[in-house]
């Protein structure tokens, strides 16, 4: 019986692994509902759905999503037929030619996306200038170039999907069709293509997702246009804001809904195949139907969205604002007092240090100085004025850019009625 705990080990490992897999996503999802201007879980300020609203008004992001959808559809339409052709070709050639062709076909997956993006850009640029084409032609069009670049390697992904399906194809089916008088084209259309249909579906989904999420190639080929990922990347690089978390929440929710419907459909299929479908109980049949499940989930999402849209977090946000101001004021007070005490010894040195550090803090930058907003009071050790270490303590400047979106605060002014008299109505930084 000494094996008891050892047997639990694999489960423990799996649990840890899935925690690693989902932890970051869950935390990110939570930050989408925190009203704090910086994506974080603690300190929790207020439950808000405002970041989703902000998302819907982001014209740049919406334009990027629009472009991504166009590119995604284009990639599916080109990459899937190419992948199918490549897989069929591979299935017909002899073993030696097959090996070398396979190497050629698989290469685009291994070539770094950056290199593919670059080479696509250069090639079409060269071709365009050789043909004397103007800058408004296809050769310089970001959407076209991105489709070309992405198809290069996404075609290889779809080829892999088709190869695994084609391995299970019984070639005697084609022979049977030919034997019964079908032309090779008829055999292809009526026998092979229907067999490949599910793979065509999954290859299309895979190609679309791969296109939507591609960054490395797109960032080069997109030129002056923007896509979902490039907009997202510049947002992430130049400013952290929970509305990005909101994007992730939407994607994860969509994925979960799709996955649930898929799983229900799959179970139904296997049960139908084994003849276990509860046909005699109509109610059960309805509930187990994928369309019903999809509708149920859609209703759920709709309800959450509606609740979110009607949720008013302004009261809570005002209170948090006040708390912060109170803390700031207290800190300011303490600083002044300390400065007064220290004034004879080190005139104005601490003050200039603190002010400097606060001003240097750029929004969203994660330079050490950025630690300031995290722990307004915690990191502050009263009395110690070591120049560098004390920098985060400089309170006023630190709060200015990121956490208190001035517009947001102003827009929710109705809540201001509850504000104690001592507070100035303007929510801006001091």
């Amino acid at each position, binding site marked *: 019986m000494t094996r008891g705990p050892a047997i639990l080990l694999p489960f423990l490992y799996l649990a840890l692994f899935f925690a690693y897999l989902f932890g970051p996503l869950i935390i990110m999802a939570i930050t989408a509902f925190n009203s704090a201007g910086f994506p974080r879980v603690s300190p929790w300020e207020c439950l808000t759905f405002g970041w989703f609203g902000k998302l819907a008004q982001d014209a740049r992001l919406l334009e990027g999503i629009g472009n991504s959808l166009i590119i995604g559809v284009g990639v599916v339409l080109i990459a899937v037929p190419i992948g199918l052709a490549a897989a069929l070709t591979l299935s017909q050639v002899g073993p030696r030619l097959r090996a070398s062709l396979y190497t050629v076909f698989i290469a685009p997956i291994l070539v770094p996306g950056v290199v593919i993006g670059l080479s696509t850009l250069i090639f079409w640029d060269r071709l365009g200038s050789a043909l004397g084409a103007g800058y408004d032609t296809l050769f310089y069009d970001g959407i076209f170039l991105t489709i070309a670049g992405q198809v290069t390697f996404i075609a290889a992904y779809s080829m892999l999907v088709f190869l695994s399906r084609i391995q299970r194809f019984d070639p005697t089916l084609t022979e049977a069709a*030919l*034997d019964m008088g079908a032309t090779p084209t008829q055999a292809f259309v009526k026998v092979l293509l229907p067999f490949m249909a599910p793979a065509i579906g999954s290859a299309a989904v895979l190609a679309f997702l791969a296109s939507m999420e591609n960054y490395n190639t797109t960032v080069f080929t997109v030129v002056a246009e923007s896509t979902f990922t490039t907009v997202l990347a510049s947002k992430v690089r130049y400013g952290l804001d929970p509305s990005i978390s909101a994007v992730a929440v939407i994607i994860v929710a969509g994925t979960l809904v799709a996955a649930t419907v898929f799983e229900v459909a799959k179970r139904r299929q296997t049960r139908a195949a084994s003849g276990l479908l509860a046909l005699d109980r109509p109610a059960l049949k309805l509930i187990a139907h994928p369309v019903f499940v999809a509708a149920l989930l859609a209703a759920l999402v709709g309800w959450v969205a509606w609740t979110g849209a009607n949720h008013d977090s302004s009261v809570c946000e005002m209170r948090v604002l006040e708390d912060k101001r109170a803390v700031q004021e207290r800190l300011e007070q303490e600083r002044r007092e300390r400065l007064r005490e220290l004034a004879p010894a080190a005139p104005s040195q601490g003050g200039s240090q603190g002010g400097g550090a606060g001003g240097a803090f750029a929004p969203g930058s994660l330079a050490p100085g950025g630690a300031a907003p995290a722990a307004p009071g915690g990191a502050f050790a009263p009395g110690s004025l070591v120049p560098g270490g004390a920098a985060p303590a400089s309170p006023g400047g630190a709060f200015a850019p990121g956490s208190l979106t001035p517009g947001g605060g102003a827009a929710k002014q109705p809540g201001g009625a509850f504000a104690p008299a001592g507070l100035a109505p303007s929510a801006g930084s001091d």
Partner: protein
Amino acid sequence: MTKDITLDYVSVQFGDYVAVDGAHLTIQGGEFFSFLGPSGCGKTTLLRCISGFQEPTSGQIRIGGKDMRGIGPNKRPTALIFQNLALFPLMSVADNIAFPLEVRGVDRRTRRKRADELLELIALPGQGDKKPSELSGGQRQRVAIARALAVEPDILLLDEPLSALDLKLRQHMRRELRAIQKQVGLTFIYITHDQGEALTMSDRVAVMSRGRIEQVGDARAVYDQPRTAFVASFVGENNALPGRVISREAGVSTLDLGLPAPLRVATGAGPGAKLAPGAECLAFVRPEALRPCAPDATNAIPATVAREEFEGAQRHLVLDAAGRELRMTLVNDDRSAAFGPGSAIHVGFAPDMACALPPGEMASA
């Protein structure tokens, strides 16, 4: 209208490997003809040549007098039933059956009508809307036949179509296949490694080994008068006794088979008749031809029963005769009850129930 099929010295080579070696025969229109042989003997290759999936390396295949070289499988008057049946899994049974008509541009209503007729023929009326996966093995078998018949071919080629079925169903399908063949009056060319199938169904059988056709004849001829050691040892069970010819008369030779007494064995007009005294030979005696007999009877061989294999209706006795192993099959009745293991007996056989052949390659067990 039936057409003869002539194989005119057909050979197929894959690199150095000779899959079919000079096959030469004519199959009459309306005949149920089987190619019988162990796996790898070239029978499937020969079938693929007839159906058009394989071009012979040399030789000619004529169907109804017409040379088939260069004519693809979709243009030949043949229909092939594949070993795995090759029913299209995504189409309904009716669509499967009507597929040959569909690719010929026959309109939907006619197709459906023809499919229903054929379903009637194979005794599966009203099952047209099912998927092949919903049918039993035997039903799928019949659908494959119906689909092949839908083209109205002159020749139906069957590539071991019963091998996936269990024993009972297989025996049932043998009768059914034969009945369908009689009913539609087509030429059936049947490939099998199962001699029971070949012998029970066929008008004629061609036994093949290593790419060569060893013997062509009806079931009785192949079983009773094998012309080569391979045929004698492959078709049915046989005791093979190597030895030497002592003397020969018209139709009967006396052989020294290493047993206490010489034995008399019929040669008929077969290859055994050419063996001169002193020549090496192989004698074959079927287990069911051996019988217990008196010590002074013709071809009496003293032996002891080494062991018994009991099979219900029959008892297979393994005998030790002067160090040689002989198998004898007895009907399980009151007369055979005496011969238990260990008992000493004499066994014999009528000269024309055995045969003498020149030595040659034998089928491996």
